[in-house]
């Protein structure tokens, strides 16, 4: 029952967000129907575009899961961007320094990225557990620290011959892109990260709903004192919760910098970090919900350009629509109430 409710809420939010977007389009003198048809065609029109949509979604699934997982354990992490950077940096460093067979290489890189993200996130976890430092503030600080760590370490150790501002290109054997997948989707940027994202979604769903670890983490999130009373190690769990969340974001970094992208640039805080909050939110913090909402964002991200190219709708409208959807998702209580009202009415009449 709860699940139908969340689904209804998310759909209503998306719908109202789209309506609001349509109003904006109409205000700028564009035809919303045309706009949306190009938007969705841009994201889904052919295999290549579907592949690109999924490629965009891949990173968002992982950052969305990262935020959602922390959320479910009572923590609000804004740190996905920084953890992505660290994960990406570790993956890039390994990819550029080691020479291994592709499967082993990828395994090592992903493991390193997950560990890097986890370690980076466990610092705010530790500060929260031991010193009660608010994770919102500490993760913001950690983001900027990661930004500067990458900013200085890429040029110092991994830069190419000519450019100070980006790493060398990731060699083929260290890239998550594989030919069969790219060919399957007609040359799209889709990469093995997608499979990783699907796996991660399943695993996180499993952890949250079916394992004692999930039970513990949620208990700590809901009520620290009761968890302590029950003999659960609260500090360890907070660090663990942020650690897992960080590992997910670290993996997001690996898929982004060694899959979607072909090298690592400095001076950019990846947008997928903050977008993860929106994705998690629209997915009602449930793992498969996150997956679905990431795909939706993927469509928006990749269809936006086609819509802009085909119509006179300015590029900024895409962002406005996404933002509006989030706002409506935040105010979803309204829809839940409406939904309950409908249910009651329906029941009475039945």
């Amino acid at each position, binding site marked *: 029952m709860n699940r139908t409710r969340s689904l209804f809420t998310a759909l209503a939010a998306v719908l109202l967000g789209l309506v609001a977007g349509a109003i*904006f389009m109409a205000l*700028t003198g564009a035809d919303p129907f045309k706009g949306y048809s190009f938007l969705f065609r841009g994201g889904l029109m052919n295999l290549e575009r579907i592949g690109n949509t999924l490629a965009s979604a891949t990173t968002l699934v992982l950052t969305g899961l990262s935020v959602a997982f922390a959320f479910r354990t009572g923590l*609000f992490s*804004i740190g996905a961007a920084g953890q992505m950077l660290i994960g990406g940096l570790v993956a890039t460093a390994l990819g550029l320094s080691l020479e291994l067979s592709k499967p082993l290489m990828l395994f090592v890189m992903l493991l390193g990225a997950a560990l890097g993200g986890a370690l980076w996130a466990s610092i705010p976890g530790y*500060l929260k557990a031991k*010193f*009660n*430092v*608010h994770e*919102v*503030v*500490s993760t*913001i*600080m*950690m983001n*900027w*620290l990661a930004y*500067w*760590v990458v*900013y*200085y*370490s890429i040029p110092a150790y991994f830069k190419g011959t000519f450019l100070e501002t980006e790493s060398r290109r990731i060699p083929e054997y260290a890239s998550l892109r594989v030919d069969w997948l790219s060919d399957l989707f007609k040359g799209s940027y889709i990469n093995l990260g997608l499979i990783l994202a699907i796996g991660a979604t399943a695993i996180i769903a499993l952890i949250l709903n079916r394992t004692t670890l999930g039970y513990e983490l949620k208990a700590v999130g809901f009520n620290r004192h009761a968890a302590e009373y029950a003999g659960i190690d609260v500090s360890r769990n907070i660090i663990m919760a942020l650690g897992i969340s960080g590992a997910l974001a670290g993996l997001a970094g690996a898929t982004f910098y060694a899959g979607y992208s072909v090298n690592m640039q400095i001076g950019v805080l990846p947008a997928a970090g903050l977008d993860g*909050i*929106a994705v998690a*939110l629209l997915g009602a913090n449930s793992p498969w919900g996150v997956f679905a909402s990431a795909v939706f964002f993927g469509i928006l991200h990749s269809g936006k350009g086609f819509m802009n190219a085909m119509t006179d709708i*300015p590029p*900024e*409208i895409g*962002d*406005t629509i*996404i*933002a*509006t959807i*989030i*706002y409506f*998702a*935040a*105010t*979803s*209580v*309204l829809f839940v109430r409406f939904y309950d009202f409908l249910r009651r009415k329906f029941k009475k009449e039945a």
Partner: protein
Amino acid sequence: METIFSVFPYAIAYTMPLLAAALGGLYCERSGVVNIGLEGLMVVGSFTSAMVISGLQASMGPSALWVGLAAAMVIGAAFSLLHAVASINLKANQVISGTAINMIAGALTVFLARNITGSGNVRITMGFIQRDIPLLSDIPVLGPLFFSKTYATTWLVLALVAISWVVIYKTPFGLRLRACGEHPQTADAAGISVYRMRYIAVMISGALAGLAGAVILVTYSSEFNGSVSGLGFLALAALIFGQWKPAGILGSTFFFGIAATVANVSQVIPAFSRIPGLLLKAFPYVVTLAALVLFSKSSQAPRAAGEPFDQGKR
């Protein structure tokens, strides 16, 4: 030392928007509503003032700046209603609603700027001028630190902080505001409309964050470009660091301002040149974390902050 004197006024200039935004956050959280949307509200303020000032500057001259500040406050307050409706009436998760505010503000303002002016960047020709305060700036040490090269807006923001201290601790409004943030059921039972107080507080925070965005524009940036580069989040950190107290945020924002300025200018100071760049850039964030470690144990957070008010809850 000379360098410290010379950059101090810039640290203060950098501090003021942070301070104004943190003060806005203070009203909001003291009433029990968390406002992650400060960043977005600052963008709205920056946008509004840029539009107003660039439109009026030719005809009005310098007084257009003040009109711009006022407009930023009004529009900031109006925009914050989005957050108020979501988090007060609809009992939405406040953090999420604030995040949505940030996204909407960033996208919508650039969109509007492009549609209205044809460009997503709006420039004003002239901001406020730094001035030395006569007499006071001649005082040794203090003069060059605090009374040299000051912006008019600095005194405005400082005055607002002082007024806020009085309002929050010495007036019935302040008493009620704090009650709503600590224990809204108590305020409710005392006949205070928690909804109304929270609306007022959210709007004040919108106005102050709007002002903060405008202050950035009229002091050091003079250009709207759809971003305030994370200052809103930093203001939030300063609010927590300052323990939700006016004097506290005055201290914490100055701390940030000085740390960030030192990090910025250290590049041009030969004495610092042997220190790795990473350490210099990381400095403000590391000291913030360190300071939080020291101050977080005894958190004075308003107890009800972040919780939607539920009359029936006991």
